[in-house]
Every structure is written in structure tokens, then in C-alpha cells.
């Protein structure tokens, strides 16, 4: 059974990725649509959906599922139950 993962779902919908993609494979370099324009919108999206605000230093690091998840973890946000 696949565990629900709100961050993975968000990224899949946001970049229209294949639904079966492994979360660890969601990395900026491998996703053509993840350009600087998308990055700007993605940050707004994550901040709004998870109710957090990132610092400048954090924003610079948000380039993959794993890193975004870690940043959310540090803020005490759980992306899956």
C-alpha cells in the first residue's frame, strides 16, 4: 500500500509528473518544467499549502523532493501521516 504523501502529490500535480514516479526522483535537474519561473511559483505554492515561510537561505536549497521535505521537517511540518 502506498503511503499518502502531500508533498509528493503536490509536486506531481504541479509539474504534471507521472503518478508512479518515486519521490526521490523528483529533482530539479531531471524535470524540464522546473525552471526559474516555476521555482518562483512553487515556493509560493509550498508556503501556502503547508502554511510556512522560508528564509532566503532555505529557498536556495529547495531543489528536490528530499530537500523540500527536510526543510518542512525542520519546521515541524509532516507531509505524510
Amino acid at each position, binding site marked *: 500500500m502506498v503511503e499518502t504523501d502531500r508533498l509528493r502529490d*503536490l509536486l506531481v*500535480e*504541479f509539474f504534471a509528473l507521472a503518478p508512479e514516479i518515486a519521490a526521490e526522483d523528483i529533482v530539479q535537474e531531471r524535470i524540464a518544467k522546473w525552471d*526559474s*519561473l516555476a521555482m*518562483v*511559483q*512553487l*515556493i*509560493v*505554492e509550498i508556503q*501556502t*499549502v503547508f502554511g510556512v515561510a*522560508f528564509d*532566503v537561505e532555505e*529557498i536556495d536549497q529547495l531543489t528536490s523532493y528530499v530537500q523540500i521535505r527536510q526543510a518542512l521537517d525542520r519546521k515541524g511540518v509532516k507531509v505524510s501521516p
Partner: protein
Amino acid sequence: MQRPVDIAVSRLPEPARAAVLAAFGEAPTWMSVRRANAALEAVDARLRGPDVAIHLLASFNVEPVEPALRLGLECIPCRPQLRIAPLNTIEQHLLDKTSFVYQEDSLATVVLWRIEELIPEVLLPYSSGGTEVVRGRVEQLWGRIERACRAYRGTAKSPLFLATFPSPRQMSGLVLNSQLVGGAMNAVAELNRKLGELAASLPGLYLLDWNWWAAQEGAGAFDPMMEQMARQPLSLRGALSLGLFVGRHLRPLVAPRRKVLVLDLDNTLWGGILGEDGVRGLKLGHDFPGNIYRRIQREARELKDQGVLLVLVSKNDEAEVREAFRELPDMELKWEDFVSRRVNFNHKHENLREIADELGLGIDSFAMLDDSDYEREQMRMFQPEVLVINQRSDPLHMLQALQSTDAFDAYTVSAEDRGRHREYELREARSGRGHEANLEEFLRSLHLEATVERIHEGTEQRVVQMLSKTNQFNLTTRRHRLEELKALMAAPGSIGLTLRLSDKFGDQGIVGVLLAVPAEKGRLRIDSYLVSCRALGRGVEECLWAELAKQARAGKFAGIIGEYIPTPKNGLAEKFFDKLGFARFEKTSSVTRYLMEPVKPVEPPAWLASNGGQ
């Protein structure tokens, strides 16, 4: 409080409405914006309003928020083809006649700019050479703005919408900066004042008060992180709201203003119920809550003086209502301020149907303010074309709804607009005599006088206004703008006529327009032929025709081609060319073409004294 999005969304086609509302929610997300745009894309294009090109020039990077801005514009409603110039190329585009902003058939060019980008020195004057130097830069900037705007308006066909400059957001030294003549606050105020003067002097240049918007929206409309990251200062919520705001300013270009405001009495124009509380028990005046009702009346009177017709529809006893109008000391509205009144116990939608016929106006040009949930609901059910302005019965809500509605939005108020109420009043006086047995005798008794003349500079604006507003007696419904009209009339041989009507009650202004242009085989083609509905049935149409026929014969034209282009509203003009004696030679679903060859001479109607085109 009614949010702008609530007003806008009510006009959208049903299947997309929920998705759009969700996108404008408390904490909007990009996915909700994308879903809303996709939901609109899925709706039949015809239900989404006209396809329009809108050009955007900005001093910041608009690209990252484009889908949100576009969603706001969709709510006009329209299908916007939004084209955005590269960051900070405003001046280049306005000055470059080959730029896309000069594209002929676009709806508008919109300029959004901020002092932070155009002249950042004003935020840091002391390290930028001092306040005098900075002040000089502001002067220079203004010179460039004015030159670019004049160049654009001198050539381009589309109107130009300039944003006012918002007060700067990220600024140090607030206290000091507020004191300085060369400081940011002063620069913003000065530039905005000059923008206002420029707009007043250049036709086709309009302002959108972005500064007002920024103050209303507050800090939540901006995102300092985005400003640094993407040279784009708006939050998502701000971008959505700005799209709606710009859309509201463009809307009058595609949607006509509502012409009639229908007002209820009890708990709408005064507090209390006349039939129960009596005149003395009514709340109206300078104290709470009577001051709110008084303000509602004052707002209505303001609209009346801008050319909106007021109609009173109340379930009451007329004698009592007249007494209340006479006796209440703080009434802002008088009985005579209404062009039509129905104080009776009939259904309001039936009353409105009658009034629409009486005034010769479409019911879709009516908007209503009424405290009764029942009445509003009944109107929505039986006469959904009538716009219901307020959603609740609370007087403060009603006042705010009346103040914030876009139903009466316009860019200018013409002399005709200001005099409209009187014209309809007189019209009512006239129609009261329409029962006289002999129609021609009745028309003669009005001492009608027509002045037909060639279109000239002094009448062009009115002609364009009529072209844009006349729906019913309008054979082709071609909405030429000023520049197009000028181009048509510049063609050798073209004939453009206006008809000004007066009668024993007064001058009605220009009520008829006829444009004819040379066509192949030595013929003339009637491009536009329209008569204001308040002047129909008095021979105006025939009088214009007689003059055109005379001038066509004098100009040795072989024949005249007439066209009837059907719309949902101009059915009453369908047989007009048949009536004039034209022969039909082509009929498709979109147009019927007629020809009269040779042109027969015809006399203007006998009861209408005409100047004969002098």
C-alpha cells in the same frame, strides 16, 4: 462586504464559477489558479465573452504572475489574449510604431509601473546626489512619460490605461522621506497629479488608480521575497486582485453601462415601513442609522446626474408615498427625480417589464437595489437580466454594494448623459399624449425640428458614443472607435450624417447617425445606420434617409447598398430597408444585403421640419 470577485464571478458561465471562486479564496494557490483557468478553457467560448487582445507594459517582471492576472481579466468576462512586453521596456514600446502595442484591433494597452523601478534614487536621495538632483530626475522622468504617452495616443488606435504610482513599500527613513520635497512621497504625489492632468487632456488615455488599490489591499498584496527573487513585487493574492482591478477598468470597452437604477423605498431609501411606522416613524437624516439611508439617496442622485435613470418601484400606497416625499425634511431624492414610478402592489418584475417598454430600453440595462430578499429572489427568477446590486438587506451592505458596483462604470459623462434624465421626463410627458387619434397630427403638435449635418470634430465623440451604445435601431452594430470613424470619413466621397432633434419640450441632442462609404461600381454602401431608441417613431430614420438619398444623387452615385446584420437586439430594424424601397439581393445567416439603383428621390416626413443637411 461584497468582494470584487463576487460581482465578477456572477457573470461567469456556471460550470466554471466554482473553480474561479476557489482560486480567489482566502489562501490562493497556483494549482487553484490553474484549475480555474482550465475550467474556463473547457467552457464554450461563446459563453466566455469576446476574444480580445490586451497588451501589458510593466516596470517589473509580470511573467511569474501572468496566469493570475489573466484569470482576473477573464472575469470581465472576456477571453484575453494577454501579451506582455519584456521587463522595463515601457518607453521603447510606446515610442516604437512597429511595436505590437500599436496592433490595430487590440482592446487596450495597460501600463503598470512603480517608482521603485523607474527612479530608485528617490528612495535613497542623500546618496544619490542630494534632494535637488533627485527632484530633477523626477522632472526628467515626467518629460519622458508625457512624450511617450502623447506619441502613442497620436498614432495608436487602442486606448492607453496608465496605472498611478503606488506609494513605495520598501523604504527606509519614513519620517525624513515624508518631509522632503525631493523625497519619494512627494515624487509619487506629484507624478500622480500630472498623470491625472495628462489623462484629462489626451482622449483615449485613462488612469487606473493603482495607488488606491495598493492602499486598499495592504501588505498582503505584496511579497518582498518575490520582489527580490523574481523582480516581481506581488503576492499571488495581490496578482489575482490586480487582474480583477485592471479588468474592471477595461470592462466598459466591451460591456455597456447599465442605464437604469431601480430603487425600492421601505428600508432601502429610508429606514422603517411607511405603511406601519407612518411618515414620522421613518429613519432618515443625520443620525445613525438614518444617515446611511440618506447616503444611499445621495449616491443615487449622483448617478442620476451622471445620466443613469432612476426608477421607483415600491409596494405602497401612492398618496402616502407622495406625502412622505413632501414632508420628510432630509430627503435627498425628490419625487421628480424618478423618470418612472410604480407605487402599487403588482409584481415588481411585471412593473419593470412595463417601464422598460415605456422607456424604450432593454430590461438588461436595469439594475436594482432592494432590501427585500423576496423581491430580489423573485427578480432573479422571473427577470434574470435585471442586475441585483445588493445581496443582503442590511443598509450598510446596500450602501457599500451601491458604491462598489461596476454596473454604472464609465470613463466620461457627456452633456447628453447629464441631460438624459430630463429628456426621458419630457418623453414621459410626450408619451402621455400618444393616445391622440391621429398620429401625424400628434407628431405635428410636438413641433419637431431636425438638424441634419455632416459629422465634424465637434460631433465625432457623440457619434462614437452612439455607435458604441445603440443596440435596437442599429442596422449593422459596427462599433467603430474614433480613429476608425475618422478613417472612414476621410475616404473621398464618403458621407457621414448626424441628426439633432428638438421639439417643443427642448433639445434632445444628436439622436441619429448614418455613415455611407463609396463601394464598387460607383455605388455607396451604408456602413452604419442607427437611431437612439428614445427618438424612434418620429420620422428621424426617414429624415436621415431622405438626406442621404439627396446627397447620393447630387454626388452622382449609381446606387446605394444597405446591410442588415442581425443581433439579439436589433430585430425591430430588420425590415427597415424593405420599407424604404430597397431590393434584397443577398441573404445569409449573418447579413442581408439590399440595393437601390438608381437612387430614388424622397421627401423627409412632413411633420418634421428639417434643415435639409445644411
